[in-house]
């Protein structure tokens, strides 16, 4: 017996406007729309609809809209429709529920409970249109021994660092989970913006080696696509220990997404599932991590910073302290609202902690131990706007990773169906007919627009605070106040309550 489960959304077509041009039918990879020749009109299987809005956007007469279904079981505050449907689905299939993108549950978003300061009277706000307003940052170790040459000039004893024109980078999304055109858009945007994008654990397509100086390559537990040339091309190397959307588990790229190109890039057979194990099987402890960090540094002659990325979990502060002493140059922390191309729903929705709290505790711990300069901190999962960036930096981050926001810029409607591989927007798919819908010439421009716009906003907010360099905002927690937070939340965030003066 297979119980029918009603879809969450319904397609509503205005018959007065529909001209039966069948655009919606051609655009929908989920095969929702179909033309009823006998009736001479368009119809829809709403149950297949993932609400990606492709048809709504492309309908030439705006005849379509998608609405939340009002079909319901008997109202129950404990057993709501979604919960019941999930039980039915699992009873039908016996499988683990899969989801994509970030945790959509109504957990508190602490970014929205922090307010930013501005200057009044006692010191002047600074107008970024009239005065320089610096958003450039360098990521990496800053611990130095002061050494001088024979003329008394300071010697450059700094470890390799990354130079960013804006404290924002595109976070790891593998080729395989997203398309060639999406990768090309990210790479070209990173180059134009003077920032970095991240290959994720999918290797680097041979066409994109030319963007190497703006590329961070990832080494994850599956070690897909990694070899000497891959490491040498990159500006930095990221060891992925965990991901905010699915802490504690590995990755799974279904064989269906592994076409010839992906197979070559990942260096795995075509059509075979690519499974990244939960742990790195050569890293069962912090001292093992240190060995991998130094192996990668040896392989690249200590010319590139090494990033260690972890998911935000309960013990993040202590873990970060271990990483800071492991030789890593940068720690990336990914919050539990971070996106993914596919994750078990229960993991995505229940494991990990908010990035705001993880960041605050990591930054505080590293300072208490006097090792904050040993590493830079990059946070992601999820950074939704320039205001989130400003707040993250004031809490103590050096820079932010954006993934979901970058995909939104490319047209992603956040339908959370990436794992099905049928992305109608050409982003999270490998189907050539779908991939070509994303034009990288347009895509990269939109990414450049997004980050440029955020940069302007960051500058405006910094100027309002009387700060003209992002370096003076980093860790400047007096610039934040909490609203609607408990004492414990305030103390974890290390900020005061709104209305509490200096």
């Amino acid at each position: 017996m297979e119980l029918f489960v009603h879809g969450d959304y319904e397609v509503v077509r205005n018959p007065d406007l529909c001209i039966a041009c069948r655009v919606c039918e051609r655009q929908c990879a989920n095969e929702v729309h179909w033309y009823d020749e006998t009736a001479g009109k368009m119809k829809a299987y709403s149950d297949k609809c993932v609400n990606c809005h492709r048809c709504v956007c492309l309908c030439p007469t705006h005849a379509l809209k998608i609405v939340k279904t009002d079909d319901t079981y008997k109202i129950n505050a404990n057993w709501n429709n979604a919960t019941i449907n999930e039980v039915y689905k699992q009873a039908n299939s016996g499988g683990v529920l899969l989801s994509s993108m970030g945790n959509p549950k109504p957990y508190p978003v602490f970014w929205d409970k922090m307010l930013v300061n501005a200057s009044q009277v006692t010191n002047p706000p600074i107008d970024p249109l009239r005065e320089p307003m610096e958003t450039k940052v360098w990521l990496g170790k800053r611990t130095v021994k002061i050494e001088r040459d024979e003329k008394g000039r300071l010697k450059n004893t700094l470890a390799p660092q990354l130079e960013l024109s804006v404290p924002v980078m595109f976070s790891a999304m593998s080729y395989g989970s997203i398309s060639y055109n999406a990768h090309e858009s990210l790479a070209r945007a990173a180059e134009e913006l003077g920032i970095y994008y991240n290959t994720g654990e999918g290797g680097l397509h041979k066409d994109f080696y030319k963007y190497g100086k703006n590329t961070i390559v990832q080494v994850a537990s599956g070690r897909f696509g990694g070899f000497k040339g891959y490491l040498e091309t990159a500006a930095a190397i990221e060891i992925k220990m965990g991901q905010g959307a699915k802490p504690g588990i590995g990755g799974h790229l279904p064989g269906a997404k592994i076409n010839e190109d992906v197979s070559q890039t990942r260096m795995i057979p075509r059509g075979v599932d690519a499974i990244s194990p939960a742990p790195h099987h050569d890293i069962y402890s912090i001292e093992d991590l240190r060995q991998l960090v130094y192996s990668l540094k040896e392989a690249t002659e200590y010319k590139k910073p090494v990033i260690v990325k972890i998911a935000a979990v309960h013990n993040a502060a202590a873990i970060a302290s271990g990483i800071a002493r492991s030789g890593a140059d940068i720690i990336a922390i990914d919050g539990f609202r971070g996106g993914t191309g596919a994750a078990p729903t229960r993991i995505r929705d229940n494991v990990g902690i908010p990035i705001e709290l993880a960041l605050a505790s990591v930054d505080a711990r590293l300072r208490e131990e006097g090792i904050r300069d040993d590493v830079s901190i990059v946070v992601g999962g999820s950074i939704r706007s320039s205001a989130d960036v400003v707040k993250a930096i004031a809490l103590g981050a050096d820079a932010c990773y954006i993934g979901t926001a970058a995909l939104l810029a490319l047209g992603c409607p956040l339908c959370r169906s990436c794992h099905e591989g049928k992305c109608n927007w050409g982003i999270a798919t490998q189907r050539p007919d779908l991939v070509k819908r994303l034009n990288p010439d347009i895509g990269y421009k939109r990414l450049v627009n997004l980050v440029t716009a955020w940069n302007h906003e960051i500058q405006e907010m910094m100027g309002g605070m009387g700060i003209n360099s992002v370096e003076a905002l980093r860790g400047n927690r007096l610039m934040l106040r909490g609203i609607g937070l408990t004492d414990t939340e305030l103390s974890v965030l290390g900020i005061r309550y709104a209305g509490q003066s200096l």
Partner: protein
Amino acid sequence: MIREGIFRNPSGCAVSGVIDRSGKRMSGECMIRSIATMHDRSNGLGGGFAGYGIYPHYKDFYAFHLFFDSKMAKGAAEAFLGRHFEIAYSSEIQTHKLPSVTDEPMIWRYFCAPLPRKLADSHLDEREYVVRCVNRINVQIDGAYVFSSGKNMGIFKGVGFPEDIGRFYGLDEYEGYAWTCHGRYPTNTPGWWGGAHPFGLLDFSVVHNGEISSYDANRRYIEMFGYKCTLQTDTEVITYIVDYLVRKCGLTLKEVSHVIAASFWSTIADKPEEDREQETLLRRMFPSLLVTGPFSIILGYTGGLMALNDRLKLRSMVCAEKGDLAFIASEECAIRAIEPSPDTVYAPAGGEAVIYELYDRGGRA
């Protein structure tokens, strides 16, 4: 009384300083007249002075100036000093009662040298030993506060208008080769004497006018290196930054200015290669010690004064020279009040360090 440090205390202010580069000593009277001219830049809630070269007879001893709220605090502090230092001479600092200066604590002076065995056992550099002892008194002994701890220099400060504070301490009776002073306009003060400025650490003294916007970034960074910002004032954190960069990292004052009032990246890009390289390196090494928001500071140290404005020059500051004398002040009027016809008058650019040193330290006229 609520001591400062329970809350953050920004303030507006006036600063002035003078040095005779030949090393000739002058009385503090000139500074009193100079700061009095800028009366309206203070609001009667704090004033103070630092004099260099004022204790030639005890120049090898650390001169500790302490405020005591009670006899008990004094007893505890003296016991502590006795355990850690040889005290060559101690006395109450002579003051002159004025109707406009009230609520003064007990004010004492001790000339000290670290006990050799204690110092050796601590495995610390002598100056670090002194700094730690001063911090312990200030943090652990309730009602006792060391507000000056350098050799052959002294800080004199209190709650009141600065010119009154100068007369209260009788600074016309002290002679030094360099002086700085400060009139305070705090927006938030309990009127605690220890909160007045200059702020000192060993022979560094800082007077500052401004309200820095980078405060918490600077504070949280510098506290990693053993400093504790107990007063929560800009002046305190700036002093610690200078101490860290100069005493612990070995940077020159010019280099310090490229850290705390760094040129903009766009400006650095236009500089000659060698400067560009060095300034870029300094910004990359110490980004968290960049100080933003308005400030004008005069840093006093053994043998010199340094004037420095924030990178946008959001506070006024003027320098002038007359023969061996060099002057720095918030307003030109404060210089002309004591030297009506200077040879040169000059407003340094934002972030431009102006350093005046004794000739025997390499200072130039």
